[in-house]
């Protein structure tokens, strides 16, 4: 890979496809700059929010004179504050993410590319993007910045990581949830092959802190259907454990188990109002991101 930063993951044509897209939060967020996302704060904008009683020290310009005329009482007009979006990309580099089949990218590579694409879209909308990279532990925490240089730097850091041996996704996610102090958008890009209840609890932690959470459950097609034609000795990418199995005789049971695994995540996310998406690594990233963002835009209308 000769390119570095965003160029390592997205080519100009892909970037051009993503140019006019935007990632909007479904909830109010808290940013540092004025932007097009609804803020939790009330402030100066054209969009009326509500009234409150006048308090000494308030700016007299904000008194609603029409209400005073009608009621002889002083009320202050309050307006919806609008702020920029802070997006945190959580990229899983656990051992299981190092899997690829049939000439596709590894799941980790796919996750990096997806992170690059999303970061690009976020920055193009003048929002800020930060990144957390984790495997067996928190590997890197890159703060939110609304600069392409910062994104490039973050991606360079990401580029420097390889998939780890094990995983500690749930613990790290709890840690991240604690570290993000203001309402933001959290995007988790992972295969979620960890202790499922713990992962769900971690996601719930994000939601508890009022973050808008998106889960990109990244899986290889073979992982989904066990579409292997001959028996083999399988080696666990995280534990190194081996077992001999004939996929043809157990495909149905495997698919049922995997289906239940996915369905449990989907239901849990749905209950927590978390946007859950299943991403297969055989799909082009730009196509997926474009389809996802357009659908999100359509649903938010």
């Amino acid at each position, binding site marked *: 890979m000769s390119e570095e930063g965003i160029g390592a993951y997205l080519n100009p044509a892909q970037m051009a496809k993503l140019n006019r897209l935007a990632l909007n939060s479904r909830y109010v967020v808290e940013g540092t700059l004025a932007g097009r996302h609804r803020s939790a704060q009330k402030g100066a904008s054209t969009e009326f929010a509500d009234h409150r009683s006048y308090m000494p020290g308030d700016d007299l310009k904000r008194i609603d004179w029409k209400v005073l005329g009608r009621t002889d009482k002083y009320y202050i007009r309050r307006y919806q504050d609008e702020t920029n979006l802070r997006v945190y990309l959580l990229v899983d580099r656990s051992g299981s993410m190092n899997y690829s089949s049939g000439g596709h990218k590894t799941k980790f590579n796919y996750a990096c590319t997806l992170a690059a694409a999303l970061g690009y879209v976020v920055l193009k909308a003048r929002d800020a993007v930060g990144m957390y990279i984790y495997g067996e532990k928190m590997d890197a925490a890159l703060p939110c910045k609304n600069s392409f240089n910062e994104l490039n730097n973050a991606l360079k850091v990401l580029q420097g990581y390889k998939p780890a041996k094990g995983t500690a996704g749930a613990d790290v996610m709890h840690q991240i949830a604690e570290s993000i102090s203001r309402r933001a958008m959290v995007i988790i890009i992972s295969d979620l092959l960890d202790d499922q209840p713990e992962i769900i609890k971690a996601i719930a932690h994000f939601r508890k802190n009022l973050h808008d959470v998106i889960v990109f459950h990244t899986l*290889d097609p073979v992982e989904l259907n066990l579409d292997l034609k001959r028996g083999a000795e399988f*080696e666990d990418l995280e534990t190194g454990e081996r077992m001999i199995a004939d996929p043809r005789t157990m495909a149905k049971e495997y698919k049922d188990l995997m289906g239940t695994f996915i369905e449990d995540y989907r239901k849990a996310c749905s209950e927590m109002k978390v946007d859950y998406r299943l991403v297969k690594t055989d799909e082009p990233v730009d196509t997926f991101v474009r389809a996802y963002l357009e659908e999100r835009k359509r649903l938010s209308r």
Partner: protein
Amino acid sequence: MFLWALTAAAIPLMLHMFQRRKTVVTPFPTLRFLKAAQKRSSSRVRFENFLLWLLRTLLLLMLGLAFALPVLRMTTGSSWLIRTRRDVAIVIDASYSMTYELDRGKVWDICKDAAVSVIEGLLSGDRVCVYVAGDVPVPVIEKPTTEHATVIQAIRTLSCLSGTSKLDETVALALKALEQQEGRREREVYILTDGQALPWQGFRDAAKKEEQAGADKALISREQRDKVSFFALLAGAQQPDNACPSNLKVSPPLLLAGQSARLNVRIGRTGTAKQVTVAVEVDGQERARRGVTTEANAESSLEFAIAGLEPGIHVAKVTTPQDALPIDDEFLFLLRVRKQLPVLIAGPQEATRYLKAALAPGAADDSVKQIDVAELDSVDLRDYQAVFLCDVFPLTGQAVMRIEEYAKTGGVVIVFPGDRADLAAYAEMKILPAQPKGTEEIPVERAARPLRRLPNQKDQIVNFNLPLPPGAIPTVALKRLMSFGDLQENGAVLITAGDGVPFMTGRAVGRGRVFMFAISANREWSTFPLTAFFLPVVHQLIRQGAGASVQPPHLVMGSNIPVNEAVPNYREDDVIAMPSGAPLPVKDNGNRTFVIEELAEPGIYTRAKAGAAQPEPVLAVNTDRFESRLTPATTEELSEWTGFKKFLTAKDPEELTRLIGEYRNGRSLAEVFLWIALLLALAEWWFANRALRTQTGTTEKMTVDLSGKVVTT
């Protein structure tokens, strides 16, 4: 040697045990789901693997067994060690249904050839006897012999018979012949027939009787049925097609010149419903032809009217179009047409005057003869259809005996009392309907009496129809009237003269009839001879009586009947010739009774009277048309009816030869094993592929759209 190949059955197991596991290490994100899936599927996979192993082992076993060419022997255990000698009985069905024509020839010829093949298949020292099943069993080679060439020669000269067959009796006789032989041998009985159900009827009836009466009285013992091997060749058509005239009725039974004969013809049919053309020939000339749609496997009937028949005996036949069984396509019968009925009137002139005047008015008539009482001793009564006895008592013992014999052999005797004899004289004649009790003078005021015919009673044999125009009430004036005692056996009062007073009585005696009036035949006792209905009553008596003794228009082969019942006016010196020209044996049973022992040939029988120039036809004999019902029996039915333990049936001689070969030499199981191997191979292929076929799981039922949204169906 190929049995060593059975060890190949161990190959699948050995392959499994010594299989080198050439596995490729494949990295996988997590083994968690693989382990769980393997745990879930292990019992199913184990079962499928076991089934596959079983199928493959069985497949190799079957192939090994097939190439070893195993043979299944059906004979007893001793024959494994030494060559078994056989006693063989061949029973050939010779009923006329065996002449059924198939594409490859007559069933009879096929069966004879099969018999020859069976004998040629025997080894020297094996003994064979041959029986033909007809109406009675006919031994061709009675005792089992080792002279096979002689037996074959005898079979080649056999001819089919024209009657039915009784296989049960013939098989029983053949078994008896086998049992009488010494030595421990295998016994085999071959029944060569056309597969028609009828000849096996005896077995079925015997099975029913055996159920009721027990096995002790069975024609073929249980031991015989268990120990002897039976082979049946059912060589006839599987779906036979036959139409034939099966029966015929002529009415009226007594035909007089100028009358039309009505023929009711029954057409028997075996096979599907079909249009059949039926023709009637009289004296070689076709007189009628009609079509009838016969029902499937049923009888149909149709009527013909033949007019303009001259007096005499006419040879006639009903024919159906020729089919595969031509022997039953003709049905012969005789039409006996009489000019007049000859009548004898015995008695004094004054007693018979009115009767003679009524029967032969004007000029003298040959058919009516009047004789004096004394002549009754000498005249041959058999020349007359009816004999009137008018005031003839007392009679001589000779005359009484002759009259009684005449009545018993089918004659009609009509008795009019008179003044000559006292009541005791009537007692000499035992055939009267009732013995007279007395005579009564009728006063003038009670003289007029209406005549009334009494309705027929149940079980009344003698009947009389008073021929009167509608509404007419015949009345007579009585002067004197005879009264009667109790009616004799088979006697009845037929006409009363007011208040139930018997006027005419009648009685059936043997094949004839005796009628007796309560008045004389002249005007001394009543005005009856002067009334308008005297003549019709007398004519009716003659005709009705004559009808009772009419000879049948046709007979069935094998009948055993008195000559007088079949041949009119038979005399000892008459010679009856069979259709082949041979004289028909007539047995003298004594007391002037002659019996035809058996009508052995179908066709027209003729009688040559002593001194007569031309023989006249006297009998028309047909085959028993039961045999024409060709409905075949199934193997299951035959097995059930016969109760044979070892009973093998073949549909053609080739199959019979194969069965015999399998029975004696054993049946090769190679083909069976190969078929099983093929089925096992197919099952293995299907099952192995089924096991490998990917089954749809939950993830494949999930729909993931481009945006990653998951929808579970």
